[in-house]
């Protein structure tokens, strides 16, 4: 058997010239027939099978265009569903009143009695509610915005800046390893005591913060003048008092007390007495 002219000479194996990246579908050694031309340029491509009838889903042909249309419709539906999911807002409307429990069953006289009873109850509750509201002067403190309000029967008599607790955490580096959080408490309080030219008995944290030893003699704890002219004590060591640092008013810098400027403190002092309510939020 003579080698084919297009094939390299020899034993029928593919030589360097005939080397291709793709493996030949038929090994050259087993190539049937002498005239088989395996050069890439002329290798006949395997015949594409003739396109049969398009697949169908019932009467709908599943060709490319149909698939695209179906996908578009599905996407549109999904988008429509997405658009219709969420919250629908409508103007506020009063809920319809439930019928009175006495309803239509009762006779006119009974109904009148029931109405009178309800009116009496309403008056009684309204009166009780009124007693819960503070009477006279009271103090409201917004500890986040550092504002203090002096109010009388819901009328604001004074609005001033103040300084509330900084929220700082102080940890003792040695010794008992105590920890203090300098926050102003929220809630309802009362003025428990009032003092003019108050003297501050410095607590332990004041010495710890300054890095000074805690004195054993109580008189070494006293500090004069730092609380301003007046102090209104509302419990647990918390006070409304003056400050030496008026430029810091409006910022949360205190250790939990409420610091107020001198002029505003004078007005508060003049209006507030023992028992005056203090509301801190």
């Amino acid at each position, binding site marked *: 058997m003579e080698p084919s002219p297009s094939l390299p000479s020899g034993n029928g194996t593919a030589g360097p010239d005939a080397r291709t990246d793709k493996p030949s579908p038929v090994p050259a050694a087993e190539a049937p027939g002498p005239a088989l031309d395996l050069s890439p340029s002329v290798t006949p491509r395997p015949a594409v099978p003739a396109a049969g009838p398009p697949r169908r889903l019932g009467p709908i042909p599943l060709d490319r265009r149909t698939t695209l249309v179906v996908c578009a419709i599905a996407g549109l539906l999904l988008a*429509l*569903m*997405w658009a219709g*999911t*969420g*919250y*629908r*807002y*409508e*103007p*506020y409307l*009063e*809920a319809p*009143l*439930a*019928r*009175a429990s*006495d*309803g*239509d069953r009762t006779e*006119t006289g009974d*109904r*009148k009695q029931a*109405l009178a009873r*309800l*009116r009496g109850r*309403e008056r009684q*509750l*309204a009166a*009780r*509610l009124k007693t*819960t*509201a*503070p009477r006279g002067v009271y103090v*409201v403190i*917004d500890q*986040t*915005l*550092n504002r203090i309000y002096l109010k009388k029967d*819901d009328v604001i008599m004074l609005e001033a800046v103040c300084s509330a607790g*900084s929220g*700082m*955490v*102080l940890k*003792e*580096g*040695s010794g008992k390893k105590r920890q203090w959080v300098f926050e102003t408490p929220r*809630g*309802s309080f009362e003025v428990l005591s009032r003092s003019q030219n108050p003297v501050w008995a410095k607590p332990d944290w004041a010495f*710890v*913060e300054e*890095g*000074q030893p805690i004195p054993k003699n109580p008189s070494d704890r006293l500090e004069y003048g730092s609380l301003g002219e007046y102090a209104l004590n509302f419990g647990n060591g918390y006070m409304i008092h003056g400050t030496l640092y008026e430029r*810091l008013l*409006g*910022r*949360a*810098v205190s250790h939990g007390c409420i610091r107020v400027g001198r002029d505003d403190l004078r007005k508060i002092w003049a209006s507030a007495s023992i028992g005056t309510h203090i*509301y801190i*939020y």
Partner: protein
Amino acid sequence: MTLHAHSGVLGRLARRPGLGISAAIGLLLAVGACSRAPSSSAADDGGATNGARLEHRTALLQRELELTGEKDFYLLLDPAAPDLTLMLRGAELRRFQVLGLQVGYPRVSWFSRRDTRAWQGVIWSNGELDPPRLIDRIVVTAVEAAKGGDAGKADDAAEPPAIPPTPEELYRVPSRFRVRFSDGLSVEIRPREGDANTGRFTRLRAWWSAKWGDVAAAMRSSNRDAVRLRIILNPKDADSLYRSLPPAVRLLVLSGSPPPR
């Protein structure tokens, strides 16, 4: 036959005017009697409505009293005023004027998932801000006390402490925020024209994220956000409410011509 009878009656009335007048009076009385029946039923309805209103107001007062007896802060939303008041033990702490009020219900694919529970005149509890107001606490570890009290001198030599920021600088208020209550009610606070100063892209991004948030919330099976109240406030009031709202606040929506406070 009937015609004849009628003409006979009319003829008789025409002949005797006194009979005609008495017939007219009788007719008027009959009409009056007929019209009295519906008016008495209207009075009955009015009485029942009055009764219902009174019962409702009494129930509201009872709930308000319940709130004043506890140590939690609470909000009273009065749609009639309209205002939102922060209160504690019956004392008014802060009043915010409400500029707009809407109610939102979830819906999935255009189908409403309206919660049938009553939310007006009911106390909602454990209201928390969303996103929460974070407090950036400064933690200081004190240096060991020096013997002889020299630490103060050392502090004097050190740099003076920085001036802390104001609350306006400290707490950035989101353009819209919610107060979420347990059991499904949430209140969305929006400043009026809150988005007016932002760019188009920022607004689009906010809308996009809000929409996805709404989609997720509406599809959730739990009753979180079952009812949303959208309250529009002045921008300053909205900021102030976000910065000052105490934790675990409660809410009572006063409805149906609430009693005067």
